[in-house]
């Protein structure tokens, strides 16, 4: 039988391991801008993908949550891995997805293309996993908002031009809007729609 690639192992103890990752994502979204590390020893993600991104989808995605993936991931082993482990449908259009992986540097798709929820159901919005080359030593950002006592400094690398303007427009739409999880390797930072992000240009 022809085996195109070796499928990665899922959680060995699905209940506790997925809950531990769920708890960490909750922590990331309730303390925006703070860098956290995901314990990725409990599973094998697809090759070439940030293990924090894989952990997030493994813990949160299921057959009721359409996932949008960029072209290079749809064509790679990521698609088979995600479908095998979570049963999540792969969404062809960004606006139908509840979870999405996007590349920080890629101009397409714009944040505004994803579901922001409806006035009666603001929870029906997308959570975007943003793949960054690194979450440290990039352009410094000032993050303020709920969950942040005074302000947090956070400096991800490789974010496309205009991204923070789009995120500011997203913030303005509160209570609607998308939430972001920025990831790199096993590191993750949450930026919910309530956070206000101001780039400190020139400071780098």
């Amino acid at each position, binding site marked *: *039988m022809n085996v195109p690639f*070796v*499928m990665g*192992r*899922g959680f060995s103890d*699905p209940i506790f391991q997925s809950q531990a990752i769920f708890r960490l994502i909750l922590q990331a979204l309730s303390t925006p801008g703070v860098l956290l590390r995901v314990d990725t020893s409990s599973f094998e993600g697809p090759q070439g993908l940030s293990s924090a991104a894989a952990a997030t989808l493994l813990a949160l995605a299921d057959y009721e949550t359409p996932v949008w993936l960029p072209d290079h991931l749809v064509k790679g082993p990521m698609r088979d891995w995600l479908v095998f482990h979570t049963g999540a449908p792969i969404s062809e259009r960004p606006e139908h997805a509840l979870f999405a992986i996007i590349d920080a540097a890629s101009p397409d798709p714009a944040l505004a293309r994803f579901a922001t929820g409806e006035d009666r159901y603001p929870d029906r919005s997308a959570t975007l996993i943003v793949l960054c080359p690194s979450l440290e030593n990039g352009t410094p950002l000032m993050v303020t908002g709920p969950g942040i006592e005074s302000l947090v400094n956070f400096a991800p690398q490789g974010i496309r031009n205009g991204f923070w303007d789009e995120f500011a427009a997203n913030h303005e739409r509160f209570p609607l809007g998308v939430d972001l999880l920025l990831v790199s390797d096993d590191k993750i930072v949450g930026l919910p729609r309530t956070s206000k992000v101001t780039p400190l240009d020139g400071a780098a």
Partner: protein
Amino acid sequence: MTVNPHTESKTPRQHWMSVLARASLKDLEQAIASLGPMPAYDVMKPAETGTIMLEGRAGGAGRRFNIGEATMTRCVVRLKDGTMGFSYALGRDKRKAQLAALLDGMLQLPTHAAILHNSVIGPLAEQQASKKIDVSRKAAATKVDFFTLVRGDG
């Protein structure tokens, strides 16, 4: 249990998976003990128990309807070369699900297929077929033909 009208067109893998699903844990343990050393494998999805919806057709030919839910256990393992073994079986026997998944994986390997077919799948399939005939014979012996006399209502 209704007779599957597509039995004849089953693929070889469907055949051996159904034999493994119907086998008892004892059968599978014995089979594995007789085979000697087993290949190394990883558990991809640990055996988990859930329910599936069973569908039926009235008289075997009517419209599909849901009969009810049945408890089942499934498991997925991966052999060292990446071959995946799957099992789905009624009941909540996790050990059996894991062994059946392992055997399904090994049956896909050209190096193991022949011996497994001869020593495991063949005998188990025969045993299951004769048991099925026994059961249907016993059921047939208790068959009652109902009939109603036409009432003479004038």
